[in-house]
């Protein structure tokens, strides 16, 4: 049987768990299935951030270039997680590079489409922003721990 809608996949993804049905239907219209081969660049720092991704399977590296150290991975995002929030806030540009570490299946969401729907339906907007705030908070906490260099010799 050919699946014609992404709604069941959205419902099953941890990021959208518990979301109201009408909101699932709304955001499904802004989404599509995508695949990235291992090593493929998903987006680059400075490029327009007009999408975000829900990773279904695989692993994506978030990277940037450190002078003298070269390309450095600061985070990986795997199945069940969300990649990218620069589409939410001006100037809508990526702050890092993202590259598929392994063959990766994801759902890509059109940021412009979703922002327009959030503006039209504030209940949807509130729900989406709450979900992203949760992710941002968790990433900030994790980044603070990384900055502590807790496995260093003082640990």
């Amino acid at each position: 049987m050919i699946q014609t809608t992404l709604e069941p996949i959205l419902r099953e993804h941890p990021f959208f768990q518990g979301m109201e049905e009408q909101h699932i239907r709304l955001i499904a219209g802004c989404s599509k299935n995508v695949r990235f081969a291992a090593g493929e660049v998903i987006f680059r720092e400075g490029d327009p951030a007009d999408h975000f991704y829900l990773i279904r399977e695989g692993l994506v590296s978030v990277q940037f270039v450190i002078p003298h150290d070269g390309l450095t991975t600061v985070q990986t995002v795997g199945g069940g997680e969300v990649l990218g929030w620069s589409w939410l806030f001006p100037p809508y540009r990526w702050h890092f590079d993202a590259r598929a570490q392994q063959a990766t299946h994801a759902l890509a969401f059109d940021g412009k489409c979703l922002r327009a729907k959030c503006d039209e339906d504030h209940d949807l907007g509130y729900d989406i922003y709450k979900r992203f705030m949760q992710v941002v908070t968790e990433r900030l906490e994790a980044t603070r721990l990384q900055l502590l260099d807790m496995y260093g010799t003082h640990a």
Partner: protein
Amino acid sequence: MAPMLEQTEAVTAGPVPDPMLPVPYRIQRVKQETGDTFTLEILPEDPSQGFTFAPGQFNMLYVFGVGEVPISISSDPGNVPLLKHTTRVVGTVTKAMRQLKRGEVMGIRGPFGSHWPVEEATGRDVVIVAGGIGLAPLRPALYRLMAERSKFRRIVLLYGTRTPEDMLYRHELERWRGKFDLEIQVTVDRAASTWRGNVGVVTTMIGRAPFDPSNTLAMLCGPEIMMRFTVMELLKRGVAAECVYLSAERNMKCGIGFCGHCQYGPTFVCKDGPVFALPSIAAILGKSEI
């Protein structure tokens, strides 16, 4: 004196004839594990010297003329009397210890302290969360779990290090992963683009690790701040506090609760720990004054 010896016997797996008397052990091998960590493999000078220990216990290692330091036993409890201790070069004694060569002799007192509750994990999922050199005190528990694999449900090891080069026991981890009955997830704080694994703190792996929180026993060892955040994530996931065990580290000196150097709130880490059930230290975990 008598009550103290009785207490020591209650928490150790093997006999301690005189807990203050170092027993000579000869170094069989010094293995460099990472840039600043190494493993000493030692055997008793007297082959008839019995030694048993439980996973999580530690020994006092004495470099003659320099000093003594507490180091967790990191070898297989089923393969005594060979003992392995992995440590980092951080001070005068460990620096001198790193200079020791095969064939030289050092003193050992122990084993001391409480141990990981491996038997309590029977019939449950087991989640082991290690950070940095914290994998060393957990390795004996892994050996024991793997030796009795059928008694446990899923076994998940989540291991975080600073960089891929700082990973301990890399070959052993690869071998265990190849057996397919142990889920191993490694993450590093940062890595060059050539690293093909996870990057991020180990606490972020708990939310998506494959275990049933209602029937899980967790064992944690690593920097205290890592363990605090790991505890939060485990509790958030639904693991009961009484099913979480962690290994604390303080300045152990005598090993038997005499000197008080390792006092941790109302407990002594050398005698009541180093392995504690979370509820027994939850109130003082992370307090800067303690």
